[in-house]
């Protein structure tokens, strides 16, 4: 039988398809791109990654660090990532603009009393104590129009200052302590673990707890996905949240241990010794819509939004009932 061109092409096509069929059998793992922030709030996910909980659920996670939810949610909107870790303020703002997101998990929160997971710091001896002192000065926030920005403003207002007279500089969390130390900003509202690392090095001193002085039990940040993605991949979302919740459980059981410090030091680029002294935020596996309502009221006070927000509709079922 002669090798005609048609027979050759057919054979080549069949040959090329063989490896594809073989990989099909192995390609069980679902790939997910997740935008994260290198702060203590995402420790649960990082633990789940390090301990292989995602792999156990058949998920391959590819993380993209961002400065904050205000930067991660646009990536979510563009489809560049499937899940984004975002603060509640940015999520509410996106919801108000009908970008079609939903909260799929619990995340970080504050408790009834300090220490919070973030504090307002200045150079030691700067002498800035109240909101009035901060008029004409600058406070470093990771991005503007998010939770750090809002509660910094709320604190300035509460302590007698005009929040509009303060400048809010955008500085990524890992660089905030250096920004204050170098005089680029007068203060920073900085999150763990950088907060404790800065204090331990005596580079900064604590001025106030803007979260706690404004509101108790704030649902600070959670994982968010688009409604379209959730509808098409409900099983994957459940697996993601289950693995994440396992990470949270492990963290609660092993906080303070060397392994725990090692994982957190890894993704925040700090040293394990610096991690040991940090304060841990509350890690709930669900979100209470009442907490969001209070935050929305604060947003309204600061003219960030107008009109009603359906906070219950913002929560997907995996954020309401913990996935086991």
């Amino acid at each position, binding site marked *: 039988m002669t090798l005609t061109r048609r027979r050759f092409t057919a054979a080549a096509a069949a040959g090329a398809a063989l490896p594809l069929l073989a990989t099909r059998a192995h390609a069980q793992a679902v790939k997910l791109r997740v935008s994260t922030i290198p702060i203590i709030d995402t420790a649960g996910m990082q633990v789940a990654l390090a301990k292989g909980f995602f792999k156990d659920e058949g998920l391959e996670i590819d993380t993209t660090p961002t400065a904050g939810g*205000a930067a991660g*949610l*646009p990536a979510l*909107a*563009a489809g560049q990532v499937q899940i984004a870790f975002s603060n509640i303020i*940015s999520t509410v*703002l*996106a919801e*108000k*603009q*009908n*970008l*079609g997101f939903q909260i799929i998990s619990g995340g970080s929160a504050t408790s009834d009393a300090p220490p919070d997971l973030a504090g307002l710091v200045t150079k030691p001896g700067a002498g800035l104590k109240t909101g009035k002192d901060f008029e004409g000065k*600058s406070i470093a926030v990771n*991005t*503007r*129009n*998010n939770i750090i920005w809002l509660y910094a403003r709320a604190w300035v207002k509460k302590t007698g200052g005009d929040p509009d007279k303060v*400048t*809010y*500089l*955008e500085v990524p969390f890992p660089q905030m302590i250096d920004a204050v130390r*170098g*005089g*680029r*900003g007068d203060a920073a509202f900085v999150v763990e673990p950088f907060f404790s690392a800065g204090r331990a090095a005596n580079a900064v001193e604590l001025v106030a707890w803007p979260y706690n002085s404004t509101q108790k039990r704030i649902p600070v940040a959670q994982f968010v996905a688009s409604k379209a993605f959730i509808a098409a991949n409900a099983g994957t979302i459940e697996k993601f949240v289950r693995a994440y919740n396992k990470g949270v459980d492990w963290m609660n059981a092993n906080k303070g241990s060397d392994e725990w410090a090692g994982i957190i030091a890894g993704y925040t680029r700090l040293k394990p010794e610096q991690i040991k002294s940090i304060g841990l935020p509350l890690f709930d596996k669900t979100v209470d819509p009442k907490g969001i309502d209070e935050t929305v009221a604060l947003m309204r006070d600061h003219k*960030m939004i107008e009109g009603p927000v359906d906070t219950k509709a913002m929560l997907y079922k995996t954020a309401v009932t913990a996935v086991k």
Partner: protein
Amino acid sequence: MIDRLARGAAERAPGAALILALLAAIEAAVRAGAVNVALVPAPTRIAERLGEIIASGAFAAPLAATLWLLFSAYFAASALAVGLGLLMGRYRAVDNLFEPLIELLRPLPKPALLPPLILFLGLGAPMKLVIVGLAVFFPVVINTVQGVRGVDPVLIDTARTFGHGQRNILLKVILPSALPFILAGMRVSLALGLILAVIAEMLAGTGGLGYLVLDMQRSFKVTDMYAWLVLLAVLGYALNAGFNRVERRAAHWALAQPT
């Protein structure tokens, strides 16, 4: 004159039609639901929002802030650049001194200088003025040098014959002769200056058009963001058109010069 205007309009008509056609296509796509309206609002909505911003006067303060930044740095840096360029073009010694430094810094994309500049000057007005000034400086100084070198030596000799001193020759013969070149450099600098002004405002966070565009994105107010972008585009267009008029009046003789 009507004839000239009509001709100008006829030439521009296809281009304007293209823009309108693109806008209509986007509008149709949004109405048909083909694009996510939260990311790409309908052009008519953007126009509406733009109208609201203009009617309420909300555009005034940010526009003033950006223009203040741009013009302060632009005129200061241009004056410096023209001054240095005149000296460099005229006197070999000055040129030998500064040319290597300028050649080293010129190819650097000026936004790349923002990180070191922020370390030195922080995020306030000095940083913004310096970065815009740097962007403006180089095209103007280089064009000024070229312009000075291209001056007809006969003109200079004639001036010397008439007994003019160095300063008069520089200001009354060389500078006007080099003006077309200088203005060409200043036109490029105007565009670069606006770009750097917007970027600097995004970083500094204290107001201006650049700050607002980023702020609207951060708040997911997408329609507002596009409205401010349109304002920025109109500003760029207006600045360029304004510059053309100034150029035509300042260097009109360059068109009349025999080649």
